[in-house]
Structure formats: structure tokens, C-alpha cells
């Protein structure tokens, strides 16, 4: 019996539909991939690989690193380091807020003029703080500890706190081999700071959807590339192309680690200029706690040794890393931009007259379409990691100290 024409046609339609419906997902996905030119691919690859090698925490010779990290973590959450008894490092660097505090301007014992930067990946930066006034996390912790509006503490208070807590003294001895009472106050404070630095050095953010995409680009894996959201792909193309964002937000950290003036007002209050990087270099050169000091156990730093203060440093603030950017609102050195959309709008509609005379000459208004602004934001959001909100404190790892009297109840 010969097949009827209508039957053949129906079969063809059914076969066609089946092919479309049940086609390999790879084919459909591959069709969604954005095309990148060779230079764009090269730029994308330079934003990885991630994670980078673990940073080396600066501890004195003979220290027990694991114990120092445990001590640092305990100190990080301990409000007794401030004489007021109610400000800890964690007050401004809250784990659930990606180690920021979500405020426009942070508040220690009083409101300060700066926004709290995240501590994720801080140990991978050569300069700490918006003004780069410290060249290591441990030195930066001393700045915050002693700042009259942050923790308003002192070396003497730190040593007393360490001595009066059996648990902290136990952890200190496990880390550094001596009781805090056997050191002078300044040494005890520096050891405390170095323990905090060792803890901060453990905070390397997890991989993101962008990292998976970047690695797929490196392998030429079109299928995996196409799984990255199309809007993010378009936004990334803007980031490395028309936007030229990667010029400053460079490398795996999405920051060149240096400073820039991007046309933001730099008055911290009416008539009061925030000196930015200029003040940061003053602070660095006046600090006895740099990587060139005797406290740094021969660590050294070619950048600390050669940094040069220049007039253009006024109005410059550190180029922040964009990793986790969607989780660290508000933005800029004083939190003046509330949302990521505000940030994109700032660069999109940059006021060139506000850009200071020595400001970065590569900046100009991007003049993006509404769709392009959404795409750029979509890309930035793929630098997030939901895991950071689930960060947990480690169980007490120094069993000899856990459960000692005077354990802090939190």
C-alpha cells in the first residue's frame, strides 16, 4: 500500500517538530552566544584565572599560622578591642553583608567619612583603604583600631584586653609562642593586628558565573560559553569594548589596585576636602607599621618604597575590585551612589566639568542606551557569589583554648 501524501507531510512536520523540541541543548545554546573579536577575547581572559594563589600573611618567624588565623577570627568579632566595648571589626565588616555594613558612611564610635569596603580579597590588594594609607591588611587594622571615630583604641587597651581574657591569651600564646603580658603594649598590638591580617588573608571570594564563562572562552567551549546569560555576555562586551572599563578595573580582581579621580565630589562635609590618595600617602609615609618596617619581618615592598605623592592625588580614591560588586552597595568612597544602576548612570552621563583638572583623561560619558545599561548591570551581577552570604565562622580550632573561662558569648 503506498503511503498517502498527507501522511508523508504529517510525518515530515512531526519529524521537524521533534528535531526542534528535542534537539541537543548545545545547538540552541550555541546559537545564543555573543561574538567577541580577538582583542575582546584577550581582554576577557585577562580577568582570570580565579582564584589567584593564596596571599601570604605577614606573621613573625616561628608563628603558628593556623593558630594566628583562629586568634584573628576571634579578635575580629570581639568588641572589647574598643574601649567603649561595643565596636568590633565586624561592626563595619559584617559577614552577612559581604564584610561591609551596607551604610553610606560607616559608623564606629562615631560616623566616619568613608564607606566600608569589603574585606573579601583585601589581602590581594597592594594598598588598603580608599586612600591606600596602609600597605597590608594588618597595618590597616591598626589604623582602624586607633582611629578616634572608628574603634578609638590604643596599644595599651589592646594588651590589657588580651591579658584579661584567658581565651584570648591562650590563643595568642598558641599563635606567637608567648603570653601577651611578655610583650610590650605595642608589640602585643602589632601581633594582634598580624593575627587579624592572617584571618583576612583567608577571605578569597569563590568563583562566579563570570569565571566559568571566562574559562570556557579560554577553552573555546562554545557550549559552556552560551550558558552564560545573553545579557551578561552583551554587558561584558561593553565592559571590555565601548566602555573601556577594564582599563582601570583590570585583571582577575577587576581592579588595577591603584587610584583614580572619576569626577566625584570629594568634599567629606561642606568646605572640608577629603584628601583621598594624597592624604593616604601622607599617612603611609608617617606610619611605623608599613611593610618596610621592622615589624614586617623582612617582607619588604617595592611599591611602598617607591610610591610618590603628586598633586593629582587629591580627588583620587582606590579603584575598587568589582568582584561581589552587586553585594556591596552603596558605592564609592563615601557611599554616595546607592545602587549599581546609579554607578552605571554616573559613568554613562559623566559630568566632564566636574572631572578635576588632572582627572583621568580616558573618561568620557558612555552615552549608553537603556538596554545597554541593563546589560552592563547584568554582567556586573555575574561577579556575585551567593556563597559569601553563607560564610560561617570556623569552629574553635585551638582545642586547648576552647571552653576556657571567659569565653565570649555571642
Amino acid at each position: 500500500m503506498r503511503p498517502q501524501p498527507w501522511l508523508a507531510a504529517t510525518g515530515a512536520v512531526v519529524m521537524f517538530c521533534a528535531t526542534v523540541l528535542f534537539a541537543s541543548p548545545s545547538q540552541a545554546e550555541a546559537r545564543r552566544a555573543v561574538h567577541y573579536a580577538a582583542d575582546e577575547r584577550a581582554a576577557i581572559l585577562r580577568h582570570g584565572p580565579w582564584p589567584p594563589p593564596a596571599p601570604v600573611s605577614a606573621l613573625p618567624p616561628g608563628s603558628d599560622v593556623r593558630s594566628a588565623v583562629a586568634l584573628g577570627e576571634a579578635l575580629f568579632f570581639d568588641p572589647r578591642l574598643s574601649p567603649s566595648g561595643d565596636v568590633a571589626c565586624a561592626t563595619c565588616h559584617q559577614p552577612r553583608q559581604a564584610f561591609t555594613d551596607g551604610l553610606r558612611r560607616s559608623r564606629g564610635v562615631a560616623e566616619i567619612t568613608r564607606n566600608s569596603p569589603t574585606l573579601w580579597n583585601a589581602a590581594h590588594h597592594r594598598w588598603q583603604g580608599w586612600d591606600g594609607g596602609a600597605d597590608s591588611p594588618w597595618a590597616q587594622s591598626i589604623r582602624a583600631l586607633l582611629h578616634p571615630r572608628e574603634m578609638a583604641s590604643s596599644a595599651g587597651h589592646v594588651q590589657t584586653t588580651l591579658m584579661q581574657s584567658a581565651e584570648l591569651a591562650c590563643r595568642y600564646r598558641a599563635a606567637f609562642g608567648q603570653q601577651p603580658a611578655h610583650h610590650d603594649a605595642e608589640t602585643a598590638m602589632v601581633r594582634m593586628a598580624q593575627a587579624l591580617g592572617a584571618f583576612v588573608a583567608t577571605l578569597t571570594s569563590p568563583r562566579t558565573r563570570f569565571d566559568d564563562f571566562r574559562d570556557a572562552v579560554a577553552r573555546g567551549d562554545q557550549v559552556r560559553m552560551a550558558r552564560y546569560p545573553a545579557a551578561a555576555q552583551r554587558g561584558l562586551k561593553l565592559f571590555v569594548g565601548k566602555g573601556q572599563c577594564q582599563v582601570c578595573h583590570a585583571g582577575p580582581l577587576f581592579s588595577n589596585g591603584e587610584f583614580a579621580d572619576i569626577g566625584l565630589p570629594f568634599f567629606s562635609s561642606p568646605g572640608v576636602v577629603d584628601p583621598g590618595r594624597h592624604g593616604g600617602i601622607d599617612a603611609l609615609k608617617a606610619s611605623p607599621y608599613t611593610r618596610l618596617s621592622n615589624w614586617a619581618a623582612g617582607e619588604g615592598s617595592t611599591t611602598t618604597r617607591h610610591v610618590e605623592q603628586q598633586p593629582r592625588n587629591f580627588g583620587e580614591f582606590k579603584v575598587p575590585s568589582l568582584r561581589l560588586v552587586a553585594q556591596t552597595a552603596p558605592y564609592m568612597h563615601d557611599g554616595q551612589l546607592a545602587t549599581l544602576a546609579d554607578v552605571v548612570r554616573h559613568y554613562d552621563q559623566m559630568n566632564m566639568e566636574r572631572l578635576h583638572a588632572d582627572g583621568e583623561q580616558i573618561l568620557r560619558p558612555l552615552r549608553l542606551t537603556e538596554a545597554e545599561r541593563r546589560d552592563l548591570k547584568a554582567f556586573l551581577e555575574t561577579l556575585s557569589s551567593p556563597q559569601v552570604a553563607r560564610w560561617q565562622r570556623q569552629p574553635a580550632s585551638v582545642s586547648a583554648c576552647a571552653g576556657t573561662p571567659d569565653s565570649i558569648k555571642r
Partner: protein
Amino acid sequence: MKPEATLRGAAWALVLALLSTVSPAAEPLSTAPCPSLSGAGVRQLQHEAITLAWKPVPSPIPVSQPFELELVLCGESVTLVRVDADMPAHRHGMNYRPSIMPIDQQLSRVQGLLFHMPGQWRLSFDVQRGKDRIRLSDTLRLP
């Protein structure tokens, strides 16, 4: 003058004359051979009788990471006095002031450089020759 003193003086003069003929003469700096740099990224600049060769360490120059230069400077009575860099299109220089560490009369190591963004950079080498200061420049692009 006593004959003995005259004789001793002549003898010393003869000894000194003999010594000067057997001692290797110190080669004037201007004619000393100019050492060459080896390895990746060597570049050479020339200004009249001045030759300057440099290479970055590491090579290629990484963006926003510290690097150094190995540098050879050859010429009569020349001294390297300053090394700097800028991005003419961006109207800014580096955030760091490099330092020069002489290794010998012609070889130096320059430390503390950092190019904090990709693009076109201009390296400047200031050389003192007598009362004159001469600038040699080289441009390179970081991807």
C-alpha cells in the same frame, strides 16, 4: 748634587718607565666595549654617541604589577640620572618614582616601575653628559 743621589734618581726614573710599559694601560671609558643585554624584550636607543639598551624584568611588562629594568648606558662621560614614564594620551605618569641602582660603570638596574593600565606608555631616560642633560625616550604599548 752628589753623584749617588743623581744615580738613584735616574734608577727610579728607569724603574717607573719600565713599569709603565709592562702594566696594562687603563682603557678609557669612552672606548670600553659596550656590553649587550640578552634575553627577551631588549630595546636599544641611540643619541649621537650615546647608546642605551634596556630590557624589562619580567618580560613582557605586566599591567599593574611592579617591574624593573636592566639597562646598559654607553658613551663618553655619561651618567643615567633619572628614569620615568607617562601615558601622553592620558596625561598622567606613574604613581611611583623609580630608583637607579648602578651595577658598574655601564650597567644599572632600575627598580620601582609600575604601569597601572594598558595602553601606550612613554619611557624617559635622562642622561647627564658633562653640563648637558639629554633625554632618550621609548614608547611601548601594553595590551
